[in-house]
């Protein structure tokens, strides 16, 4: 294709000189200046250049085909765990790298070929096209309206009201099928959010060793995570349970504890707080042992563990719930009950 192709809108004489334009005058300052004179491309003038462009485009498309074959070949050839060293990237999966490169090249070559084709070989003649009304002609409109009226009359919809009304009823009822399926989102959580696995007499189990914790295990400045006795990582609802029961244990100097209730609920300076942020429930445990602050990684809520878990910064709404602990007759730490308030973020019925 080249600009030599003639069309009705663009007779050749109009392309080659800037005809079709009107000079602006005092009376008509916004006159249509028309198109600038059309310039030819090398490919329009020189057939060899056009051939060369054709070869480049075909070459790009062929390269794309080869890349696609390369993609299939590397999918077959490389095992999924094969790691190779490639200089700037490092130790990388051979499969991922080759699939990405071949697919990328295949897609890129199609795009680059199409652009080169459009810019050098397809016609680049400027084509003015005047806007016209969107409206259909009066005859077409008339015919359509008449047809609609005919339909209404022939279907007896206006006369047989029972049919019409039951049809409306049927259409209105169908969406209920979708609505009733929402019931499967239930059952309602009930009081599940209020309670955790902690209960009176449950020992604090170290999450690292799965052994019950003794007070002497926990040094000042250390950080330990615990789960309630009887909870096992193999339980099918372990994740649901630990999401509420996760516990963070630190030891403070008793004289550093400012909050009286916190001191009462601690054992020799060992305090146990919920690990679930009261903002949106992220696991908080960025514990700074010198400031005794614990931060939430999600929105930087900061709690003061020496002051009843009070919020000192960030969006969290209320203090971290503390678990009341003591030591049992065998010398292990145990809970004296569940958390006194629901753990985690606030919700409507939280009370």
């Amino acid at each position: 294709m080249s600009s030599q192709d003639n069309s009705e809108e663009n007779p050749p004489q109009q392309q080659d000189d800037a005809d079709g334009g009107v000079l602006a005058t005092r009376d008509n300052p916004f006159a249509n200046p028309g198109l600038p004179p059309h310039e030819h491309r090398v490919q329009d003038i020189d057939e060899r250049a056009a051939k060369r462009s054709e070869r480049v485009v075909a070459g790009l498309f062929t390269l794309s085909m080869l890349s696609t074959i390369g993609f299939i070949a590397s999918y077959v050839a490389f095992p999924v765990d094969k790691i190779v060293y490639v200089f700037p990237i490092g130790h990388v999966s051979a499969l991922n790298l080759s699939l990405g490169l071949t697919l990328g090249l295949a897609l890129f070559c199609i795009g680059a070929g199409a652009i080169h084709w459009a810019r050098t070989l397809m016609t680049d003649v400027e084509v003015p096209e005047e806007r016209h009304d969107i409206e259909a002609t009066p005859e077409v409109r008339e015919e359509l309206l008449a047809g609609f009226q005919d339909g209404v009359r022939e279907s007896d919809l206006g006369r047989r009201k029972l049919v019409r009304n039951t049809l409306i009823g049927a259409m209105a009822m169908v969406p209920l099928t979708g609505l009733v399926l929402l019931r499967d989102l239930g059952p309602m959580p009930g009081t599940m959010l209020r309670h955790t696995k902690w209960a009176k007499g449950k020992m604090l189990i170290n999450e690292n060793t799965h052994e019950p914790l003794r007070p002497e295990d926990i040094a000042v400045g250390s950080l330990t995570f615990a789960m309630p006795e009887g909870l096992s990582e193999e339980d099918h609802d372990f994740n649901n349970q630990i999401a509420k029961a996760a516990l963070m244990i630190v030891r403070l100097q008793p004289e550093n504890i400012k909050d009286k209730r916190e001191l009462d609920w601690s054992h020799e300076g060992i305090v146990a707080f919920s690990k679930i942020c009261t903002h949106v429930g992220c696991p908080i445990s960025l514990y700074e042992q010198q400031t005794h602050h614990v931060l939430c990684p999600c929105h930087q809520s900061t709690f003061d563990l020496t002051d009843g878990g009070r919020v000192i910064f960030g969006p969290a709404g209320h203090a971290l719930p503390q678990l009341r602990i003591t030591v049992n007759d065998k010398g292990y730490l145990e809970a004296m009950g569940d958390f006194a308030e629901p753990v985690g973020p606030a919700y409507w019925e939280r009370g």
Partner: protein
Amino acid sequence: MKKLSARRRHPLAALVVLLFALAATGGLYAAFAPADKAKADEAQASLAIDEGKKLYAVGCASCHGTGGQGTSDGPSLVGVGAAAVDFQVSTGRMPAQQNGAQAPKKPKVYTAAETEQLAAYVASLGAGGPETPNKSQYSLNGKEDAANGGQLFRSNCAQCHNFSGKGGALSNGKYAPPLDGVSPKHIYEAMQTGPQNMPSFPDTVMPEKEKRDIIAYLNKVNSDDTESPGGFQLGGLGPVAEGLFAWVFGLGALVAITIWVAARTTKAKKS
């Protein structure tokens, strides 16, 4: 036996028995009594403490007090143990250059021997702190379970140090440092002693084997040989870095190519 028995009343018999007894006692003493060695060790130890005290008075006392009791500029060192000193001094964190949110890692000031003397002195100030770990405690012996280490790392360490130990920010200018290039000994000591604002993870709640598992995990995910099937890690910081890369470089490249294509004219007559 008869011969021996016949001569038991010989005038020299008592002397012979006495000689035997003395030889036996002396031999036993020499074999079992560690007295000399103990004395030598003790002497060496007290020498190290003395040397350490001198170093301490010059390099540490201005902040930590002349007897390690601490001042308003530095915490008390009584009972922190030798491992804490070894970590702080051999990673160059101490002596601190200036007061600030956190003492950063920097080239170390003291030699290994001086560090040991300082540690000996500080350890002598009060009992309680962990001793400098020996090689068998922190070096990997091939029996480590890196997968278990990964689980432990994610539950105990990742909240501050990021999932693959790339570090992260804390409050008021404090930060958890990246863990790449940190020697196993220093990782082990940090877990034991809880330097600066890091909480400690003593052996009572995280046994030696679990600490080694964590070190094995870090070697697996955070060293020069770490396999990264996805290619560039972009700092291992997760979706933020990846999104930034895609928006800046991915979209930027597309915009640049588009401009480049559109800016070139295809006309034969260049204007």
